[in-house]
């Protein structure tokens, strides 16, 4: 198996912008990352960093005022073929064969993908029949199996339930069942546990982890919660203002963070069990307004390692470190780069 076969998805130079009345929001501004087969990649960042827009770009599900303006999204298949999702017509049949079938997506709010006026069973059966030529009976069996797999009790009876009859955690499970009913190769999960209570969240994270092991699918998990990242990620991409500022394995990221933003982020969270009442480390200021993107490194106005004349002038290029990690920070090189 060649090296490229290990990768399921290769995202290169992705740019997605939102065109608003006030101007253009460069929500995703040159993003590169890979999703290896069978692994979990986390994209972590604060609000406005472009993590959700990145996830939506992969399925070409941007809001009506958004557009994928540049870059490639290469989806590798088992036979060695490659398709570029970025080049597809976002309403064409090509992308529609991928959505839900090869790449499925789950959201923070389950009602984003579930219908309130159809039974849970009907929705899953329809999704299965859309992508596979199977009889209603076969599709129904598959749907029951999917509901059973995600831990919904009495799946046969629950097929006839409407979403309003289910609790928040059960709705989340129903949405995951629908996403998994077509056996996708990649599951994109956009903050799927953020609105849930911790005990329910723990169960859903366990479920996603188990399903991944059983089905061998890849997971791209979008979150702002570093605790969740530590629990489920194999690899992590940290985003800030539309760029991936650091990529690393999960252990390296938590124990040897390189980018000043990653370091500051890790220091600013209260750690359960530390017992410390000392003031927390903070990152000064807040994420800038998207129309006021700083020049040079987007993090420089908040950075403790700010180098005048460099960081405010040069957009840091990705620098590959010895162990294969990647970081966009002039502390690690790239100062010979060009002005923005």
């Amino acid at each position, binding site marked *: 198996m060649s090296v490229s076969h290990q990768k399921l998805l290769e995202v290169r130079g992705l740019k997605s912008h939102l065109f608003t009345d006030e101007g253009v929001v460069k929500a995703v501004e040159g993003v590169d990352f890979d999703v290896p087969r069978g692994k979990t990649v986390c994209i972590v960042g*604060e*609000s406005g960093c472009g993590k959700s827009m990145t996830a939506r770009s992969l399925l070409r599900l941007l809001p009506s005022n958004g557009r994928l303006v540049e870059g490639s999204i290469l989806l590798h298949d088992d036979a060695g073929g490659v398709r570029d999702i970025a080049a597809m017509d976002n309403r064409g049949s090509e992308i529609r064969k991928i959505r839900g079938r090869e790449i499925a997506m789950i959201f923070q709010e389950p009602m984003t993908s579930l219908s309130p006026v159809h039974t849970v069973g009907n929705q899953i059966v329809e999704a299965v029949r859309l992508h596979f030529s199977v009889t209603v009976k076969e599709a129904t069996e598959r749907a029951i199996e999917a509901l059973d797999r995600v831990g919904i009790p009495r799946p046969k009876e629950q097929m006839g339930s409407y979403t309003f009859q289910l*609790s928040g*955690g*059960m709705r989340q499970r129903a949405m995951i069942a629908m996403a998994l009913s077509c056996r996708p190769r990649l599951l994109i999960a956009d903050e799927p546990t953020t609105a849930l*209570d*911790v*005990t*329910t*969240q*723990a*169960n859903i*994270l*366990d479920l996603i982890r188990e399903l991944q092991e059983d089905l061998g699918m890849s997971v791209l998990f979008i979150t*702002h*919660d*570093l*605790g*969740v*990242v*530590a*629990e489920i*990620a194999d690899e992590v991409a940290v985003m800030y203002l539309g760029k991936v500022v650091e990529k690393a394995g*999960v*252990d390296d990221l*938590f*124990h040897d963070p390189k980018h000043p933003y990653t370091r*500051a*982020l*890790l220091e*600013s*969270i*209260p*750690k*359960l*069990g*530390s*017992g*410390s*009442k*000392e*003031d*927390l*480390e*903070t*990152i*000064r200021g*807040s*994420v800038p*307004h998207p129309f006021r993107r700083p020049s040079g490194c987007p993090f420089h106005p908040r950075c403790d390692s700010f180098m005048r004349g460099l960081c405010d002038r040069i957009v840091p290029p990705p620098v590959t470190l010895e162990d294969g990690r990647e970081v966009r920070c002039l502390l690690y090189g790239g100062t010979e780069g060009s002005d923005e």
Partner: protein
Amino acid sequence: MTVQVPGASDAHARPKDPLLEVRDLKMHFPIRRGVFGRIVGYVKAVDGVSFEVNEGETLGLVGESGCGKTTLGRTLMRVYDPTAGEIRYRSRDGRAVDLADLTRQRLKPLRREIRMVFQDPQSSLNPRFPVRDIVAEPLKMSGRLSRRALDDRVAELLRQVGLRPETMHRYPHAFSGGERQRIGIARALATDPRLVVADEAVSALDVSVQAQILNLLARLQRDLVLTYVFVSHDLSVVEHISDRVAVMYVGRIIELAHTSALFRDPQHPYTEALLSAVPKPEPRLRGRTERIRLRGEVADPADPPPGCPFHPRCPYARENCRTDVPALREVRPAHWAACHYSEELELRGVEMPTVQPETR
């Protein structure tokens, strides 16, 4: 026989009376049906809660959605009229009053002493008013200050919360989420309060901003001798900010203790499960310990199970847990738990990533 009230009745406690003493507080909301609004049942959002809060301390209230923590916070503020119980508050002039029982008229002067900070700075600030008017509003109620004096006071408050006074003429939309939360805090501080109820005050903020606000709340508490009741679902935040923590489940406090005792040595199975479920920002802890996973969902406060409300989900439940309601009792000095078997069970607290000396 007197009702035992969980408080800090140990060496840490000051000899003087607590600032707030809540006894057997109940807040039941009627469920109405039909054309005539017949009452068919009650949601027992707060169902017999007792605790004390000492002056200058922070009491954390944690629990999952629907546990009644927000209703409890609001009932303390008399946003609702409690169904039963006492909320004894020692006012600035030393009088002890029962907030649960006061008329709106008599309550009004006390509203200056007890203030609230809300979760969502987006919706709790009126977008049509400039910051100056928002912050000055509670002051105008008293009607004694001149325009000039109001401006000066607003400027001082903004400085106190780390905002530039020049920004007072801007409208809320011109501020970031963290700055808006600072405005909400400035408004709460305007009347020089003694007790602040913070309801999920940092939950909507980004992590980098959350740390700033937590530090600000800690500094204000030291400088102004504030007492906090800090309502939150986030156990890491609650551990960081609280001196003592009360864990709620279906309208009741099921455990109350000093923060380090509660997190290291929980005495109630629900607390143990909560602590186990929090994702820890340490990948090396993965798979090291057996996780406790609760089955089922939080009980419906309109139809709580008989006996211990936690028994259907409790991995240690025994026969009498289905029938006997456990009382909140002092299972260790200053450590209260509502479980029949606290003494027998060996429950697991949070694993310490690094050993650190106790700071309090």
